[in-house]
């Protein structure tokens, strides 16, 4: 991790819970919702996104150094929490971006209310059930050793590798905390909300589904099915990226996202 490139984190209190977030850049709000592996403040895509507006990238409750309010245990709870966060920060006409679990959260927010959103970008979203009852749409990340997880989720597994021996205690603690909190939200039903698919029709704002084409945790058919359930969805792929496309292809991810967001009406 390159400390010099790290964005400074600040905090915001939402409903009495202290949230860690990156708040940088100026202009229209861009809310970035991270995947289940957490938010690395030094990941290059953040600076790129901040060139297109005011980037707000929180660590979800229970991730990073963010508190988790008692009783907040589901993605549905997270969605209500983020509606409150958007109220607290008075975000208007936001571009909301989520990757993987973050995309599920973004969709769960948007089916409730898009009042503070203009456009939505979902990177390799999870959160719906597509296949039949004996088909696991998304590989069981909790039944994999780390090497297999990296191989399935990255086009180049080296892109996701971490050396725990050189990380600080705090950084390793965050990794362990992220893993536990991810399981809290996604263990069962595994990586989806059985109700979400039938509610996606409520998201009427323009939505871009960006798909890292080398994802082997979940396949493109799933991504296309997600997009097809959106009334105003567009599906595009990004080559050379797996499940975490914002990490592997940050330039392409930021450029496509901001270009799509640039069509926002002010």
């Amino acid at each position: 991790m390159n400390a010099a490139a790290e964005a400074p984190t600040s905090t915001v209190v939402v409903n009495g819970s202290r949230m860690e977030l990156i708040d940088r850049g100026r202009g229209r709000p861009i809310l970035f919702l991270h995947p289940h592996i957490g938010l690395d403040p030094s990941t290059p895509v953040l600076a790129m996104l901040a060139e297109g507006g005011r980037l707000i990238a929180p660590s979800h409750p229970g991730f990073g150094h963010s508190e988790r309010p008692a009783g907040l245990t589901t993605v549905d709870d997270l969605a209500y929490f983020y509606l409150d966060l958007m109220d607290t920060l008075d975000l208007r006409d936001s571009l909301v971006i989520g990757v993987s679990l973050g995309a599920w959260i973004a969709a769960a927010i948007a089916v409730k209310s898009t009042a503070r959103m203009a456009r939505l970008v979902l990177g390799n979203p999870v959160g719906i059930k597509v296949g039949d009852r004996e088909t696991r749409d998304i590989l069981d990340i909790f039944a994999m050793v780390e090497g297999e997880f990296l191989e399935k989720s990255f086009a180049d597994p080296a892109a996701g590798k971490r050396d725990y021996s050189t990380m600080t205690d705090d950084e390793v603690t965050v990794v362990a905390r992220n893993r536990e909190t991810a399981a809290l939200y996604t263990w069962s039903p595994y990586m989806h909300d059985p109700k979400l698919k039938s509610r996606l029709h409520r998201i009427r704002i323009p939505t871009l589904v960006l798909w890292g084409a080398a994802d082997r945790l979940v396949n493109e058919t799933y991504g296309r099915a997600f997009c097809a359930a959106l009334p105003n969805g567009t599906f595009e792929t990004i080559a050379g990226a797996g499940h975490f496309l914002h990490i592997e292809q940050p330039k392409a991810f930021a450029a496509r996202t901001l270009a799509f967001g640039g069509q926002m009406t002010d």
Partner: protein
Amino acid sequence: MRVYQFTEQPYYPAWSDHNGSLRVNLPNARQDPKIAADLLHRYYDEWLVADEVGLDIMVNEHHATATCMSCTAIVALSVLARETKRARLLVLGYPIGLRPDPLRCAEELATIDVLSRGRLDMGFVKGVPYEFPVSNQNAVGVMERFWESHDFIIKAMTSHGEPFNWESEHFHYRHVNLWPRPYQNPHPPVWSTTGSRGNARVLGEKGYVMATLGTGFATRKLFDAYRAGYVSAGRQAPAADRFGYLGLVAVAANERAARARAEFIAGYVRTSGIVAPQFRNPPGYLSIEDNVRILRGEKRQRSGTRDGRFIDMHSASVQDLIDAAIMFCGTPDQVYAQIVDFCEYCGGMGNLVMMGHAGSLSHDDTVDNLTLFAKEVLPRLKEYKQPRAEAPAAA
């Protein structure tokens, strides 16, 4: 002292060909139901021997594994409640952390208690890590769910008036009304297990029987944490009957025969941890601090000898196991001396959960092991006056 005879009812014929995992993902095609039937009947016969010779009985359950065919302790308890005459029947444990329906648990256990005319000891456990993926229960928050389940079961067993209502974080019921109610009043004794000092203290506060497994000469600190919790609730130091310990036992007329028997029984500790690595540590089962240590590649060491040497269960020799008090092995005199020595070290340990059968130990060897123990060791252990350690001032 009480001594409970325990076997996991292993399907050992599958142990030789497992591709690195005896649990969770070993295909059940490796099991022949006819052999399984023969083994199960044999294991019940051996428990009946235990009942006849004056031992008590412990059963447990595990899931999706060739190490333990008892996949629901209720089946074993049901058979034994009816077929045994006098033994206390300890389930250690009933994995309520994996159970979605504590009302059903309460009903089953109450019925067993009635059927056995009050011989049930009711051990609650959260469940082993690799069985969370099997049960689909979330290991995150399992202790909160465990205690709510416990609270509900005790409330159900002790409520004798109008049906009650339960609407809480994890469980929701209306019209709870247990028929039959438990035979023992107010309810069967509660046991649990732990490997953590924090949990040991909580069990002490509640005054339940606490058993440890595989903790060897790292046991005393757990017992002391229990003692601290026990006296913090305004009681005198706990008697030895509040403590249990699982020990493998191989006894024979001479040391050589006992060691030969021990090699079979050691199959338990040598196979118990054979599970595919991806199932060993589901998120939430261990603390964040423990997971940090694991990410950093630090090994978790549990089983120590008296002189502080840690024992790797997979590769431990019989002598290692004896040195670590994981196994009590030798002639009746030697086994008695080893157990007493361990009780003295513990400051009192009044319930030996004796693994007198494990692995591929034969029926004849098992019967001889149990019979000799009951004849030569048990009477002396019953006479033995346990120490009663005070709670440590700073625990």
